[in-house]
C-alpha cells in the first residue's frame, strides 16, 4: 500500500513538473534539422512579470508569422519561460543555448532577468536582443547582448523633466521595488536628473522601498505622505505599482503618481481600477502615431490578429525579431558569431517602434513617449526626443 502511494506521488510530481516545464514551450524534441533556423524567445510566461513577457512573445510571434523564412530556411521560435525569477532565468537561458541550439535569443522583459542570462549568452557566444530591458547593465561589457529600446538614464531624465516642467513639482518622493535592478536603477537616474533640474539636493524628500510580491504598502505610503511631496515617482513591476496607487487613494492620499515603461500592461489598469486614473509614465511607442512604414504593417497585422491596440513592448518584441532576421540575412549564415557581428552593425533599421541604430554598447537611441491612464485606457500624451 505504502509503495503504491509512493509510486503514485512520484508520478503526480513528475507529471506536474512536465506540465509546467513544457507547458509554455512551443517545440521540444529532436535536434534541429538543417533546413530550420531556431531563434530563442526568452521571456517570463509565468510569475509576476508574466503579462509583460506575454506581450513581447506576441510581438515576436507576429513577426515570425509575417517573415517566416531567411536564407531559404524556415525560422522556428523556441519559447522558454524564465518564470520571472533570476535563477530560473539563468536555467532557461542555458536550456536555449545548450539543448535547443538556438542561433540567437529575443528577450527578456525585465532587466534583472536579462542580466541573469548575460554571462550565459556571452560564454556560449549566442547573440541576444532584449526588446524592452532598459537598465544600462544589460548590455554594458557584454558584446553579445543588444537591445532595441532606450535606456533608463534617458527615461529617468524624461520623467524628471515631466515632473518639473509639466507638473511643476519641486519635491518628489520615490517608492521603489528594491529587489528589482530596473526599478532601483531608474529611481537613481530620475533622482540625478531631478536634483540637477531643481538645483536642490533635498528635492527628493523620501525614498521608500518594497519587495517584489509585497501586497501591503500602507506604512510606506503613510511615511511618504507625511513628507508632503508634490509627486510620487514609483518605478516597479505593474502589479505592485497598481496596488501602491490603489492603496494610496484608499488611504486618502491624492498625490499624483508617475512611473516607467513597465506599467504598460492591461493588468495595471485591471488591478488598479479607477484609482490609477491619471497615472503618467514613459514608454517606447504609441499606436496613435505610427512612425515608420513598418509601424503601419505591424499595427495593421496586430489589430487584425488580436483585435486590440498593441502595447509598446509588443512592437519591440517584433523589432527584436526583425533585427535578428536582418542580421542572419546579411551574415549569409546561421553562425551565431557572424550574426552577432551583423547585429552590432545595425544602422537606420526600419522597425515598428522607430528607427534603430545600435551604438558601441549595443544600445538603441530612441525617443520616449509619455502616456496617461484615462477612462480605463492608456492614452498618448507627448513624444520626447533624445537629447543627443
Amino acid at each position, binding site marked *: *500500500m*505504502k509503495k503504491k*502511494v*509512493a509510486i503514485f*506521488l512520484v508520478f*503526480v*510530481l513528475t507529471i*506536474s*513538473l512536465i*506540465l*509546467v516545464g513544457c*507547458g509554455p514551450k512551443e517545440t521540444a524534441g529532436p535536434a534541429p534539422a538543417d533546413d530550420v533556423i531556431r531563434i530563442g524567445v526568452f521571456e517570463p*510566461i*509565468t*510569475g*509576476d512579470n*508574466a*503579462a509583460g513577457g*506575454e506581450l513581447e512573445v506576441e510581438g515576436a510571434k507576429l513577426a515570425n508569422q509575417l517573415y517566416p523564412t531567411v536564407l531559404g530556411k524556415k525560422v522556428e521560435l523556441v519559447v522558454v*519561460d524564465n518564470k520571472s525569477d533570476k535563477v530560473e532565468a539563468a536555467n532557461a537561458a542555458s536550456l536555449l543555448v545548450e539543448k535547443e541550439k538556438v542561433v540567437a535569443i529575443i528577450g527578456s522583459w525585465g532587466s534583472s532577468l536579462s542580466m541573469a542570462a548575460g554571462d550565459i549568452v556571452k560564454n556560449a557566444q549566442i547573440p541576444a536582443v532584449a526588446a524592452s530591458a532598459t537598465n544600462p547593465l544589460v548590455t554594458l561589457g557584454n558584446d553579445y547582448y543588444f537591445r532595441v529600446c532606450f535606456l533608463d538614464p534617458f527615461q529617468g531624465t524624461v520623467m524628471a523633466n515631466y515632473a518639473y516642467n509639466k507638473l511643476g513639482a519641486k519635491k518628489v518622493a520615490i517608492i521603489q521595488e*528594491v*529587489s528589482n535592478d530596473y526599478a532601483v536603477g531608474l529611481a537613481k537616474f530620475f533622482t540625478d536628473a531631478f536634483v540637477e533640474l531643481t538645483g536642490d539636493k533635498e528635492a527628493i524628500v*523620501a525614498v*521608500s*522601498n*518594497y*519587495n517584489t*510580491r*509585497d*501586497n*501591503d504598502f*500602507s*506604512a*510606506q505610503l*503613510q*511615511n511618504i505622505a*507625511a513628507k508632503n511631496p508634490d509627486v510620487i515617482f514609483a518605478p516597479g513591476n505593474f*502589479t505592485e505599482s*497598481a*496596488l501602491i496607487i*490603489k492603496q494610496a*487613494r*484608499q*488611504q*486618502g492620499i491624492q498625490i499624483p503618481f508617475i512611473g516607467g515603461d513597465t506599467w504598460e500592461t492591461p*493588468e495595471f489598469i*485591471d*488591478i488598479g*481600477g479607477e484609482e490609477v486614473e491619471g497615472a503618467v509614465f514613459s514608454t517606447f511607442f504609441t499606436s496613435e502615431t505610427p512612425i515608420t512604414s513598418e509601424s503601419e504593417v505591424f499595427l495593421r497585422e496586430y489589430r487584425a490578429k488580436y483585435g486590440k491596440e498593441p502595447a509598446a513592448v509588443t512592437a519591440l518584441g517584433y523589432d527584436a525579431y526583425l533585427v535578428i532576421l536582418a542580421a542572419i540575412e546579411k551574415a549569409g549564415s546561421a553562425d551565431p558569431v557572424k550574426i552577432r557581428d551583423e547585429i552590432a552593425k545595425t544602422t537606420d533599421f526600419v522597425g515598428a517602434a522607430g528607427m534603430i541604430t545600435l551604438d558601441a554598447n549595443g544600445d538603441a537611441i530612441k525617443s520616449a513617449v509619455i502616456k496617461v491612464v484615462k477612462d480605463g485606457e492608456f492614452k498618448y500624451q507627448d513624444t520626447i526626443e533624445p537629447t543627443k
Partner: protein
Amino acid sequence: MGHMTLDLFLQHLTNGISLGSLYALIAIGYTMVYGILRLINFAHGDIFMMAVYFSFFGVATFGMPWYAAFIVAIILTALLGMVVERAAYKPLRESPKVNILVSAIGASFLLQNLAVVIFGGRPKAFPTVKLLQEVMTIGSVTLQRLTLVIPVVTLTLLAGLLFLINNTKSGMAMRAVSKDHETAGLMGVDVNRTITLTFGIGSALAAVGAIMWGMKFPQINPTMGVIPGLKCFIAAVIGGIGNITGAVIGGFILGVGEIMLVAMLPSLTGYRDAFAFILLIVILLFKPTGIMGEKISEKV
C-alpha cells in the same frame, strides 16, 4: 526613527490590525492541522490561493453575486482541503513523519502548478465589492470599510471555533484525537471523520481569509499563497503551534509588527519579510513552545 503624530500612529495601527487579522485566519488552519496530526500542512498556502481563484471565477466567469460566490468558494475550499487530506496524508498516516511532510510539500507544488496550467500565469484582478471597499474617514484615519470588517470577522470566527471545540461533540472528538489517535478510536471516536473535519474547517477559515485578502490586495496569481503561507506558519509558531488562540495572537503580532517596522524604521523596509523570519528564529531559540504553547490541554 522619526517622531510620529498620534493620528499617523492610529492609521498605522489600524492597517496593522487589519493585516494581522488576515494572517490570523490563515494561521488557524496550520495550527489546527498540527494539533491533530503533528503535521505542518505546507499545502495550506496553496489552498488559500485556490480559494481566491474560486471566488474570482464565481464572480467573473459565472456571474454570481459576490456573497453567493464567496459562500460557494468557502465550501469548495473546505472540500479541497478534505480531498488533499484524503489523497496525500491519510494513506501515509502510519508512516514516518518525514514521509507525510514530503507529501505535504508535493501537494503544495501540485496545487501551484495546477493553478498555472488551469488559470494561467498572468495575474488577474479580484472583483471589487463596493459595499466593503468604500473609503471612509473616522477622525483623522482614512480607510476602507473592509479594514474594519476584517478584524471583526476574524474575532467572530475565532469565538465560534473555540465554542465548537470546547462545547460540541465534534470538538470533543477533535480534542480526543489530538491527544491520541488510537485511544480515541478505541473510545468510539471516528478518527478519520474527525481529521477530515479538521481539514475542512481549517481550509474554510483560510478561504474566508483568502476572500478578504483578495478584496484588500486585488491581485491574484498562482504563487500568491507562498508568502502568506510562510508568514502564517510563522504566526502559528509564534503563538504556540497547536494552539488556536495563540495562532490568532501570533497573526496580530506579525501584522502589527511588520507595519510598525516599516513605519518607524523606514530604512529597513526592504527587510520586512526578513523580520518575520528573524522573529521565528528568536521564538524558536528562547520560547520554542510559543506564546500560548504551555497550555497543552487546549491543543486541538
